[in-house]
């Protein structure tokens, strides 16, 4: 009995399953050894130059001012707070950039395929021109060539709607919350949930009947109607409109968008939009012509064909490259330093210079961009999975 089993059992060093596991373990160990070697090497190298790694400095008083801050900050704030300011600024530029670049990109992509000769050529010209520029040059053009060329504060151009254009920034009217704002916020929240309800019921309706209502439009309209109703019925207006004005040396009131912010967001948006335009065009062209012809044969008009037949199929091709365009935009926002906009890289650069903590700051910045990119990737992959062709 004993002998028999020992003969039928394969010794573990020849068992394929065991070997596979062992191989993996060995690989992980090797990787670990490799990285710890590199880390030790770095530590030894730094020690040789008398540099020790520590993050203690991050709680020290920064001592410098930052121009654009989304929460209160002054020279007595800590380096960490300065870093967070930069982080939020990067986030702001990325979100604004992605939002507008997507809209403009889709328009460009569709225009590029338009049968109207002029629209088609104009879009093609724009795409070819922008895609062949260097982004850094483009940003500096927008900064030195456009926004700093605007007139002085005292001679600011005033556009209808109280929009001030000057070389100290673009001033736009902005709302200041009043006493009834908290109530209004609740109404907005209600509107949001109502809009969600509309969205899901319309989708259920669509799945049940096979019809295709304009789900997003109705959802959006619901929210807007609730918001407007709230605005009208509240006795006191929830937001007081504050107009920009010139005061001494500066533009104040309303919301002042600095030339740095304007140059960076316009540059990033217009640049990335060109690439998104090409992605959209490629996506649309990947849908076979037969699909369009079939849709037309069924009596769908041009817009319906795009919305119901072409786009749903094109999206599958569009989303993966679109994700990398979004990632590009986020990472390219680090060029903010060239136009003096205090994003996370810029602030970390300043901190690094004032403290001499180059390794720590570069490490933090790398982790930050990694985190931003991974989050974006996760969101886009989730979306991609949702719209993917369900194969049977």
């Amino acid at each position: 009995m004993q002998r028999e089993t020992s003969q039928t059992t394969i010794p573990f060093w020849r068992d394929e399953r065991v070997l596979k596991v062992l191989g993996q373990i060995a690989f992980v160990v090797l990787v670990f050894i490799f990285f710890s070697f590199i880390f030790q090497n770095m530590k030894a190298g730094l020690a040789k130059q008398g540099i020790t790694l520590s993050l203690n400095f991050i709680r020290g008083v920064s001592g410098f001012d930052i121009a654009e801050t989304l929460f209160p900050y002054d020279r007595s704030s800590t380096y960490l707070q300065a870093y967070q300011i930069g982080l939020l600024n990067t986030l702001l530029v990325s979100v604004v950039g992605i939002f507008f670049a997507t809209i403009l990109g889709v328009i460009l992509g569709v225009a590029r395929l338009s049968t109207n000769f002029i629209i088609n050529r104009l879009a093609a010209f724009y795409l070819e021109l922008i895609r062949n520029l260097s982004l850094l040059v483009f940003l500096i053009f927008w900064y030195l060539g456009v926004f700093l060329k605007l007139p002085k504060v005292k001679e600011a151009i005033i556009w209808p709607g109280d929009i001030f254009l000057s070389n100290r920034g673009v001033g736009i009217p902005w709302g200041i919350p009043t006493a009834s704002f908290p109530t209004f916020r609740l109404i907005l929240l209600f509107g949001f949930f109502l809009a969600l309800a509309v969205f899901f019921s319309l989708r259920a309706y669509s799945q049940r009947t096979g019809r295709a209502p304009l789900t997003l439009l109705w959802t959006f309209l619901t929210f807007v109607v609730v918001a407007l109703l709230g605005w009208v019925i509240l006795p006191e207006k929830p937001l007081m409109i504050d107009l920009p004005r010139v005061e001494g040396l500066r533009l104040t009131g309303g919301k002042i968008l600095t030339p740095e912010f304007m140059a960076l967001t316009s540059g990033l948006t217009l640049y990335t939009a060109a690439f998104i335009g090409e992605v959209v065009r490629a996506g649309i062209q990947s849908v076979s012509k037969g699909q369009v012809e079939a849709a037309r044969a069924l009596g769908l008009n041009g817009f319906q064909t795009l919305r119901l037949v072409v786009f749903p199929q094109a999206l599958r091709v569009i989303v993966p490259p679109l994700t990398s365009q979004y990632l590009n935009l986020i990472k390219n926002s680090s060029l903010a330093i060239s136009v003096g906009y205090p994003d996370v890289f810029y602030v970390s650069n300043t901190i690094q210079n004032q403290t001499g903590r180059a390794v720590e700051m570069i490490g933090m910045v790398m982790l930050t961009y990694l985190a931003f990119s991974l989050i974006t990737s996760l969101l886009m992959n989730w979306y991609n999975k949702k719209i993917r062709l369900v194969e049977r």
Partner: protein
Amino acid sequence: MRKIFAIMGILVVASLVLAACGGAATPAPSGGETVTVKETVVVTVVAPASPAVVAPTGYGVTLETVKARGKLICGVNSQVPGFGYVDANGNFSGFDVDYCRALAAAIFGDPTKVEFRPVTAAERFTALQSGEIDILSRNTTWTLVRDTELGGNFVHTTFYDGQGMMVPADSGITTLQDLEGGTICVQTGTTTELNLADVMASLGVSYTPAVFEDADSTFAAYSEGRCDAVTTDKSGLVARRTVLADPTAHVILDVTMSKEPLGPMVRHGDDQWFDIAQWTVFALFSAEEFGITSANVDEVKATATAPEVKRMLGVEGDLGLKLGLTNDWAYNIIKLVGNYEEVYNRNLGPDTPTYIPRGLNNLYINGGLLYAPPFR
């Protein structure tokens, strides 16, 4: 694989969020003293650890490296006329640049055996720490933090400066208080950036900084009218004003916001190199004091009777050997580059567009601060 990335991502985000929370939880520094005290403690704990554990580059290594390489690598500015600038012929020129030439003359007897490497304000200390450059001669202000945490030693002050403010002549601004609500252009990674915040906070003047990465973009933004004023060391303002479109349209305010002693900087750990760099400065000072110039140095060397002059020029004794150099090191500096006055006048003198009166940068016998220890 995808999952691993997802988990990593979440971890990274979580750590950032935690860090952010930690930051928010600390009491605002306006409730201040405690924070400052805590910081001091941290520094004292950390600082002694590094020199104790570490055996840094070590005595004599830098000179050996430089000699083996056959040239000196000097980190300089390339954007401030009069101090460190690339001229129309593509040559580096300027006060700080000439110091590098003097050092090369002391080591090799040849002022051309130096490679100039332009470094920005933000990267200069890293470049020095990492050994990319042998010495930093780039209008750098001597401060305590730079002398300790940034791992460098200031050799000696070669130029006494102060921070100033430049405004357009037609702006009507005459004092710092007039800048209330204004925007001020400043370069990042500089002591001026910190001084500006300090001075304006103590005056209670609110302003918006517009901060740029290098001198070129700072002054480009200023001349485009982005700012009401631009601030940097007064010497820098004088120098940069010469390259603005209309130099007469800008005035430098009659205020000095800080002390800015500028000078070359070397890495921690090599005292021999520090000595060579320092005594190169003293040779420049003393040569002016003794009236030795590049024109008369040969004559002085042949006829000198004063023992100190003879020691300095290597006629008597072996001071050069003590530094690890040859005995004619100081002679070479004076013969090939000149004395302090010659270097000053060549770059910042009355005949140059970047004229700056000598002021404090004069010998102590002429009412200035330049004073060299004896050559003995």
